[in-house]
């Protein structure tokens, strides 16, 4: 089955054509500068058989980007597509699983887009364009929140008045589910444990967002992100958790409306806010070496960043109980050994021991960086959200086809 997977940004569109179950990539690339004209013209960076080419086309919207991508694939003789998979950030309370696109699903997506007003709308517009331009192709929407839909009520709730839950849908949704699900599956496979019996804490430490996920029996039972992606860890520009009175103090102090404070906490806080100069934790780690107030500040940033992860890791190890593994993934998780070390060092009492040498020298992923004695394995796994989406689509369509056969 050839599945074309789309990962939609506000002005970009990543795509990969994947063949399952073999998991081979037939083509991939990214359409950039979608939307109104900018200084740099819109173009598609297209990759096939390891060769990358750039194609300039005006792309006023994601629909146009989709047409361009389809033309490039046809040109390369890759027009044989069986299904389209879409990444959608927020499925709200409505989508606990992936969904085959039809009119009702589109209506449901539009209702949900108030929960993710920045992320969902471009993806929804792409879903609609695909349905219009290639109505014969089954389209499956895969949600970043769906993996977390099984989080139990006591972990999902906040201790707030019931009407906030009922009227505004205030609860934990959790995010990064596509990635957490993928690395969980990969880690279980790597350790030779059945996914359904696999317990872990998955640390998705991205260059932007970051979250931890507690996994029991292969399923998410908690995620450090909450109603929005703002809660939890210190991220590149997001503050993570705060005393709930802090946003109120900020409203009062800055005299701005809700949006101003939201911007501050989402775009100017976290590593960027603390360091004052860079949103990349690697810059803080590099600057932390040496003396002087600059490196002192950088050290404080790195300490706070890792400390927050460590606390949540402890919390989730307690939640999971008997964890088989701690998984690190995404840019920071895969590429920044000192963070992994700071988070895991000195945790021997909980059965978690990191091997400094193995942690520093990783030749290929997935890798196990725990000591031989460590009861809990520490795995570094490369995440692949598009592959995760393709797997979900494949599983869903196969199961559906099977059901049709059985009915017949």
């Amino acid at each position, binding site marked *: 089955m050839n599945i074309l997977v789309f990962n939609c940004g506000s002005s970009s569109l990543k795509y990969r054509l994947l063949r399952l179950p073999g998991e081979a990539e037939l083509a991939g690339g990214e359409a950039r500068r979608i939307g109104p004209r900018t200084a740099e013209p819109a173009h598609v960076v297209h990759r096939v058989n390891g060769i990358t080419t750039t194609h300039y086309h005006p792309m006023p919207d994601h629909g146009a980007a989709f047409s361009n991508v389809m033309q490039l694939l046809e040109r390369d003789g890759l027009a044989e597509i069986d299904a389209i998979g879409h990444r959608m950030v927020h499925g709200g309370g409505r989508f606990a699983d992936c969904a085959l696109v039809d009119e009702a699903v589109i209506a449901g997506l539009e209702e949900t887009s108030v929960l993710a007003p920045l992320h969902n709308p471009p993806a929804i517009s792409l879903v609609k364009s695909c349905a219009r331009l290639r109505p014969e192709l089954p389209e499956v929407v895969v949600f970043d929140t769906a993996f977390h839909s099984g989080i139990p009520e006591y972990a999902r709730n906040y201790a707030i008045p019931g009407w906030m839950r009922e009227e505004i849908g205030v609860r934990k949704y959790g995010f990064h589910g596509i990635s957490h699900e993928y690395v969980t599956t990969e880690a279980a496979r790597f350790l030779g444990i059945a996914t359904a019996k696999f317990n872990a804490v998955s640390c998705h430490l991205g260059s932007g967002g970051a979250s931890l996920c507690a996994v029991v029996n292969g399923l998410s039972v908690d995620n450090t992100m909450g109603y929005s992606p703002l809660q939890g860890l210190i991220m590149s520009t997001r503050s993570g958790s705060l*005393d*709930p*009175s802090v946003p*109120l*103090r900020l409203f*009062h102090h800055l*005299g701005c409306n809700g949006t101003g404070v939201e911007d501050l906490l989402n775009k100017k806080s976290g590593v960027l806010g603390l360091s004052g100069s860079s949103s990349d934790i690697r810059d803080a780690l590099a600057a932390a070496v040496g003396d002087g107030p600059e490196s002192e500040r950088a050290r404080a940033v790195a300490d706070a960043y890792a400390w927050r992860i460590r606390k949540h890791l402890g919390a989730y190890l307690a939640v999971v109980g008997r964890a088989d593994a701690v998984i690190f993934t995404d840019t920071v998780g895969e590429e920044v050994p000192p963070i992994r070390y700071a988070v895991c060092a000195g945790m021997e009492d909980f059965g978690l021991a990191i091997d400094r040498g193995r942690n520093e020298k990783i030749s290929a992923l997935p890798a196990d960086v725990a000591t031989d004695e460590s009861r809990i394995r520490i795995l570094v796994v490369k995440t692949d959200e598009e592959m995760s989406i393709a797997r979900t689509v494949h599983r869903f369509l196969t199961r559906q086809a099977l059901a049709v056969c059985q009915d017949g």
Partner: protein
Amino acid sequence: MYRMLKARRDAMKDDVVGFAQELVRTPSPSFQERGVAAIVEAGMKSAGFDNIFTDDAGNVIGVMYGRENGPNLLLLSHMDSCPHDASAWKRHPFSGEISDGRLWGLSASDCKGGLAAQIFAAALLRRAILPLQGSLIVAATVAEEKWGSIGVRALMQRTLPALGLEPAYAVLGEPTGLGIYYGHDGWMEIDACIRGANPFHVGDAAEAVARRLGSRPWAAEGGKSAEFHVQNLSYAQSEGLRRATIRMARRLSVPENVARVLEQVKSDALEVATSTGAVAVDVAVHEESQMLYTGHTTVARHVLSAWETDPFCPLMERTRHALSAAGLEAKPGKWRLGKAGMGTAGGVLMRDFSVPAIGYGPGDEDVAHGPDEYAETDAIAEATLGTAVIAHALVGVPVYGWTSDEI
């Protein structure tokens, strides 16, 4: 916090109503506020103000200093009463009688009830030991009911700058029925003066002008017609010339400009007057010399500016939010100014001193400037709480996160 303030408000109710009663019992026509000023000063002393001050205009100012230099809040009410016709009253205007849950008497609504509530709001914050960030200024002003807001002008021009206090916002204790009012129309009094050597020409012209001005519909901005009253016509003789003066009152809407209105009146008057004979016509805002109780004299122009605070500005929003958090219903609205000569100092604050102002007071606009004026005693108590809540939201130290009873 709000529960604590409410408990203290309940305990304070008799005191604030009693104080309002004392104010009502003390006659204070404009320019004769000395007696009531002494009571205000004593009231501020027992309320625990840090600094109490009477300026040369006779305004009494009480300050509770905040921890920082600002923003400061001005609570403003006037001490003087409007003129009244005792024969129309069924009750004694200065009895200060309390019955049927009402405090009866001249100025109970406009605005001694409001003044009492503002002074006690400050006392409430002090007794609840709620810390202030900016300073809270309560000013009881003179000569508000006689055009020109000269008490307020003196306060803003000289007194507060001398005290080093620049208010960021003002709340007027004028009657709003516990609503949050954000403005009103204005009034101006115009003198049209017709002069000529021929007394018959002058007389005919004056009659014609008065008829014309009094009868024609006056276009105001926005296609509406402006309210216009010819008040009287008087004659005088000087230097061999006959002079007729027509006194008129005209309602002003927010965008209207006084000079333009005068021009319009003048051109109308000229058109009618010159058709009857050779006369000269002058049109001007009515002016009057006033002497304050302190002996100072000043000239007041009879213009009451129309004003309006943006109903969605931070001052309005913060006020609305705070009152609703305290469980106090407060409808936004504007004064209707049903009777000529009514008005507030909001226009002076907004236009001449750029201080955003709103009104919040216990009185009722409909019973102000009329016989058997009263204020609800519950409303006075509620305004005390409401004003304290507003003041805390605007200049108090924020208490977010500390308000549970758990620690």
